[in-house]
C-alpha cells in the first residue's frame, strides 16, 4: 500500500526515475508527482528509500488497498 504525502512532495522525480514498474508520473504543471498505476506496485520500496523529503511510505497489508494520499488540497 502506498501512502503519499502530496504536500511534502517537491517534484524532484527521484521516485519516477527509480520505480521499475512505472507507478509514478510527474505532473509538470503542479510540480508534484502522482500515482499513475498503483496496481503495478510491487512493494520494492525504491521510491520510499530514495525520496529526499520522505513523502512516500510503503506499508505491507494483507488485503490489497488503494493508495492513501495525504496533504492534497480539495
Amino acid at each position, binding site marked *: 500500500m502506498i501512502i503519499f504525502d502530496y504536500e511534502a512532495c517537491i517534484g524532484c522525480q527521484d521516485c519516477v526515475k*527509480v520505480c521499475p514498474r*512505472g507507478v509514478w508520473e510527474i505532473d509538470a504543471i503542479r510540480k508534484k508527482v502522482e500515482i499513475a498505476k498503483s496496481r503495478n506496485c*510491487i*512493494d*520494492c520500496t525504491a521510491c520510499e528509500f*530514495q525520496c529526499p523529503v520522505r513523502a512516500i511510505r510503503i506499508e505491507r497489508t494483507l488485503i490489497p488497498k488503494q493508495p492513501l494520499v495525504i496533504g492534497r488540497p480539495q
Partner: protein
Amino acid sequence: MNKGWKYYTCILGAQLMWPRLAVRTKMGLFSFNGADSESPVLVTTDFYLTVHRVREAIQEENLKCHLLVVDGRGINVWCGSRGGNVDTDSVLDAIDQTSLANQVSHRNLILPQLIASSVSKAVLADNGWNAMFGPVEIGDVGSFIENEYEKTREQGMVSFNLQARLENNMAHMVFEMFMFLLMTPIFWLLANLGGPFVAWFGYWWSSLAYIVLLAWMFGTFMAIANPIMPTTSGYVRGLVTGLFALLVLKIIPVMFLLWQSTIDPSMIVLDWALLDTTGLTVLGLSLFVGFNWGGSTPYLGEDQMTRDIIAGLGTLVLLFALGFYFPAGIF
C-alpha cells in the same frame, strides 16, 4: 565472450534454483575499450553471471567505460538490493578499495536502476559522488550515455518478454523434474510403511511420466499466456490454468463421444466429476507450477506473494482436512 566453467555453474545453479552455485567475481574496477579518466563508471554487483552479461553488453556496444564491481555477496543486483545484501556502504567500500577517485577525473556513477531499493543517491552525494540511476537493462546503457544520461520511460521499467519467460520456464521445469525425481524414493520409502502409502506410491509411479509431461505443458502454457493472465498472483494463474486443463480434458472425451454417437448418460456423469483422482492431480499440479511461476516474474509484489503463500498453504491444509491427498491414490 568465453563461456567457461563459471558461466555454466551459475546457469546450473539458476536452473536448479540453488544459490550456492553462484560464482562470485572479485570486487574491483575493470576498464574496457581503452577507457580513460573521462570515461563513465558503471556499477554492478559481484554475481558472476551478472558481471558476465554486463561485460558482454559492453563489448557488444563497444563502450569505452569502467565497471566497478561491488561486493553484493554474489547475488544479482535486484535480489541483492531488495534483500539488503548490497547497500550504500558496499558501494562506498568498493570506491575506497579501488581508489576510484584517483582513476577518474569526474565524479559520476551510473548505478543499475534495480539497486535503488538499498543504495542512496543522497548519501553518495554527501560523499562527493554524483550517482545516477541508469536503465533497467544493461543493453540500454549505451543509449543512456548517448542521451546525456537520460532514459526513456520504457528503459526505466522491467519487462518480461517471451524469450525471458521461456528461459525462466526452462529453469522451473528442470527444478521441478529434479524435485519429482527426488520425491520418488521418498514415496517408495513411505510405501514400505503400508496403508494408504502403498496406493500413493503405486499411483505416483504409474503416473510419473504423465505428471512430468503435464508440468511441462502447464509451465509452457503459463509462460506463453502470461500477458493475458488476469492477475499477477501465481496461485490464481495456477487455478485458471488447472481449471482450463480440466475443462479440456473433460470436454474433449465428451465431444468425441457425441461425435461417435455412443453417449451413455453415466459416462457423462463420470467425466464431469471433475474432482476425481485425475482431476485433483491436474489441479494440484497446476497450482504448484503456477505458484512457483508467480514468484519468479518481476511483476509479483511482496504483499501478493504473502497472499499466494497463505492461499497455497491454506489449500494444502484444506485438501488434507477433507481427506484428499496428493497424489490421491487412496481413491
